């Protein structure tokens, strides 16, 4: 088995080597890949979309269709994770644990027992609940808003600097995951609920598709942001830039929601009770 696999892999590598021997040398500016389509992007993107970051321009406009489906791949992953992992309806365990917030005392409520008086004062915790060190938690309290702002900045400035909806979305998601790790999954769920995540999952993609479909209504082809110039009263080039921004926001929302969702699902094995 192993030797067969090794042979197979060697064959594969051999084929790759065979083909690579005739490749243009690394970094050759005259390589065909650099001469055929890409000059158009480099030389015209600023004029056509007014986006200095060529990658963003190509990603969201010239090849916007790819990116739309990339977002849909992410969305699919989110739905798939929900579909496969999520255990709907909670089986109430033998006993539930509540922590009294002001004192930090933990109560064990056996099955059938009354829920503590005010749910605001009590926090339901996990069986395996471990108090996180105050240091980490406090640091994360500072870092989470900071990184969220940073993420929004990344989304908003995808035109001018590296980044864009996807990266920003991941960082946004990471900030919520950070919160969940620094505290626990229940606190995180109370803050950023599953339903919200689900809503945002679909919302982001819908924004993307709607932006593209808007150009239908305005008489253009799908994803032709240039047509947005009519309702927004701006030039076609600026309209493209705006379209790219809208699309990036959609991507960011989806990516954030899906990342959070994946984390919730994986860390709790679909039960959404106890996290990492």
């Amino acid at each position: 088995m192993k030797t067969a696999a090794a042979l197979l892999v060697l064959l594969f590598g051999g084929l790759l080597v065979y083909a690579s021997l005739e490749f243009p040398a690394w970094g050759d500016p005259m390589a065909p890949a650099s001469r055929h389509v890409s000059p158009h992007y480099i030389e015209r993107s600023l004029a056509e979309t007014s986006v200095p970051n060529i990658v963003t321009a190509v990603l969201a406009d010239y090849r916007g269709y790819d990116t739309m489906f990339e977002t849909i791949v992410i969305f699919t992953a989110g739905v798939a994770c929900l579909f496969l992992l999520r255990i709907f309806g909670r089986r109430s365990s033998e006993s539930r644990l509540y922590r009294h917030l002001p004192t930090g005392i933990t109560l064990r409520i056996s099955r059938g027992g009354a829920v503590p008086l005010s749910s605001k004062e009590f926090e339901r915790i996990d069986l395996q609940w471990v108090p996180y060190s105050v240091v980490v938690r406090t640091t994360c309290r500072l870092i989470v808003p900071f990184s969220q702002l940073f993420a929004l900045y990344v989304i908003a400035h995808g035109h001018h600097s590296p980044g864009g909806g996807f990266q920003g979305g991941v960082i946004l998601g990471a900030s919520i995951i950070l919160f969940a790790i620094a505290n626990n999954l229940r606190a995180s769920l109370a803050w950023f609920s599953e339903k919200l995540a689900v809503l945002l999952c679909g919302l982001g993609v819908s924004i993307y598709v709607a932006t593209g479909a808007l150009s239908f209504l305005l008489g253009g082809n799908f994803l032709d942001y240039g047509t947005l110039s009519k309702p927004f009263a701006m030039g076609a080039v600026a309209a493209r830039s705006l379209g790219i921004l809208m699309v990036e926001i959609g991507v960011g929302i989806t990516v954030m929601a899906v990342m959070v969702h994946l984390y919730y699902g994986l860390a709790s094995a679909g039960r959404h009770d106890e996290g990492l």
Partner: protein
Amino acid sequence: MEALWEQILTKANYWMTIALMMVGLYAMITKRNLVKKIIGMNILQTAVILMFISIGAKRGATIPILKHGDAAAAHAPRAVDYINPLPHVLMLTAIVVAVSTLGVALALAVKIYQQNGTLDEADILARQVPRSHEGGP
């Protein structure tokens, strides 16, 4: 000999890429642990991405974000000055696809562990055999 060295040096990227691809593929095929397979899968995917980025590399060029400012606005950007952006775009998409696949794969692995209590493919198959005789799927 010269030519060989030249081949090796000018295409070091490709050779490393190939090595990585082989590592990833080997892991995917031979490793029995599901998470190991997933890691192998990711290595393979990243290696492919690396290959694409290497294709797009351009000597003497800068990152594909146009310099803005007074001087740059005056003349149109020239293709030789900037790295080919297209592979970057494609690979952004490929990374996203990779992470999505990763998410689904991990979800499956977690589910499999819940069902079988092990992540070892051979063990799972071993316990599947007696079951297949007594009842349907």
